[in-house]
């Protein structure tokens, strides 16, 4: 019954659930899913969050999204502009609570690669680059990584290049900060003493076994693993309202 919910909507709901009320949250470039997750959180359980757009608007009255996450129309009725360099200042002060980042590869320690496959000086595959990853991953209290196609080619034993720092590339101080991975199959976190990736939720229609089969290393399973909470019809309606043209599906094609 639940598998009627589209994968992007499932992921958006899971991403929104990571935001708590009063959190200060930033989204970056190429981020339809984070923008929708922030919008859902603000309209539901986190009305007092501080929403900082990658297009610089603070708490905009977002009516719809566009292919570019920096489209200035995303700033509609904002209360202020807050530049990226200012958001980065905030992050250095430890006051940016949540950031959403992407990954082309991720490993059991939470390292991400958005840089290259193969030799950095003569890449086999040139990836787009990590944007803010290497800066924000270690210092931000919670980083949510979204991956639209979980497979053993993406969830790898060891990333080819450490763009964003997992727990084995962090100082003790930065090990306290959380990484959450939200994929098309489920939700993974590192809430165990060894800080290794574990399955926390599997989305409806998927399973722990399916996630294991699509992971290139021996992934742990949280003792309290369960099916992901499902968004209600009001949330789905809200997502459709803000994204009538289905920009959110572009990453899944």
């Amino acid at each position, binding site marked *: 019954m639940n598998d009627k919910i589209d994968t992007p909507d499932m992921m958006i709901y899971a991403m929104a659930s990571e935001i708590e009320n009063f959190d200060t949250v930033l989204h970056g470039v190429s981020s339809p899913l984070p923008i929708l997750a922030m919008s859902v959180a603000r309209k539901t359980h986190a009305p007092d969050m501080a929403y900082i757009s990658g297009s610089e608007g603070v708490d905009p009255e977002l009516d719809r999204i*566009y292919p570019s996450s*920096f489209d200035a129309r995303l700033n509609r009725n904002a209360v202020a502009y807050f530049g990226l360099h200012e958001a980065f200042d905030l992050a250095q002060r430890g006051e940016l609570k949540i950031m959403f980042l992407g990954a082309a590869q991720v490993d059991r320690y939470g390292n991400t690669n958005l840089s290259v496959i193969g030799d950095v000086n003569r890449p086999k595959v*040139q990836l*787009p680059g*990590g*944007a803010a990853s290497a*800066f924000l991953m270690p210092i931000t209290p919670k980083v949510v990584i979204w991956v639209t196609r979980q497979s053993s080619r993406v969830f790898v034993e060891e990333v080819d290049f450490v763009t964003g720092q997992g727990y084995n590339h962090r*100082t003790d101080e930065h090990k306290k900060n959380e990484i959450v991975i939200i994929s098309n199959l489920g939700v993974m976190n590192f809430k165990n003493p060894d800080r290794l990736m574990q399955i926390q939720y599997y989305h409806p229609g998927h399973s722990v076994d399916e996630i294991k089969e699509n992971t290139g290393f021996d992934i742990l399973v949280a003792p309290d693993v369960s099916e992901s909470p499902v968004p209600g019809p009001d949330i789905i309606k809200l997502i459709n309202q803000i994204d009538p043209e289905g920009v959110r599906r572009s990453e899944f094609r």
Partner: protein
Amino acid sequence: MKKVLTGLQEAAGLVEDGALVTFGGATFSRVPMEFVRELVRQGKKDLNLIDREPAMDFDLLIGAGCVAKVRAGMVAFEVFGMAPNFRKKSESGELVTKEGACQPIIAGFRAAAMGLPSLPVKGMLGSDLLTISDVIGSQKQIQDPFTGETMIAVRAIEPDVAIIHAQKADEFGNVRIEGPFYEDVIKAKAAKKVVVTVEELISNTEIRKMPEATTIPHFIVDAVVETPKGAYPCSCFNYYDVDYDHIKQYLKAAAKDQFKNYLDKFVYGRESV
């Protein structure tokens, strides 16, 4: 105040082959695209491009053979996918790609704007990106002299030329940016030379009515060019939105090996498509 109003060709002449260049805006917003097209028309060579999150500006120049090196936090066409020429030429070795991260690039601009040789930033530690920075000498691990905290010092980035597209300016180079600023004001202060292309020229009298709106004052601007639609197909806030169909057309041309036709039609203005 000196009049700095000039033509697009003359202003593009300030960019020499091999120059370190940055552009204003971000991805598809308020990017000086007409100036970029003029650089292509003038056949610039070996440019060294730097920015945090560029898209079509870098890719167009790379595809037209104007670029030797790129340093950026990310080069992509957002949800439309990879930057085609950037990817192709990085993988073929024709282009030297030195990836940074957004913060060190912004901090490098800020250091130059402040007249400092470097600026420390947090984060970065443990990333393989530091091995690249090591090679190009752009970032080094340091200890704060007061707290002992380990940080990364980023070397100042002083572009030879920064080109900003803004909404309004007067003929002396007092510039108004409307909407988001991105790092444009910082870049203008950091660069050796500053070119501003504008949608609209306004009078100095008009400028004086609202000095708080002037974010870049005349004494750091070397050239102002009246360039309506100067950001097209990117957006210019309060003037026009992004032409997403044009961007798709660009990607289609690049994917079908018809990039030359794209250049002919949209850069050189020759009808061949």
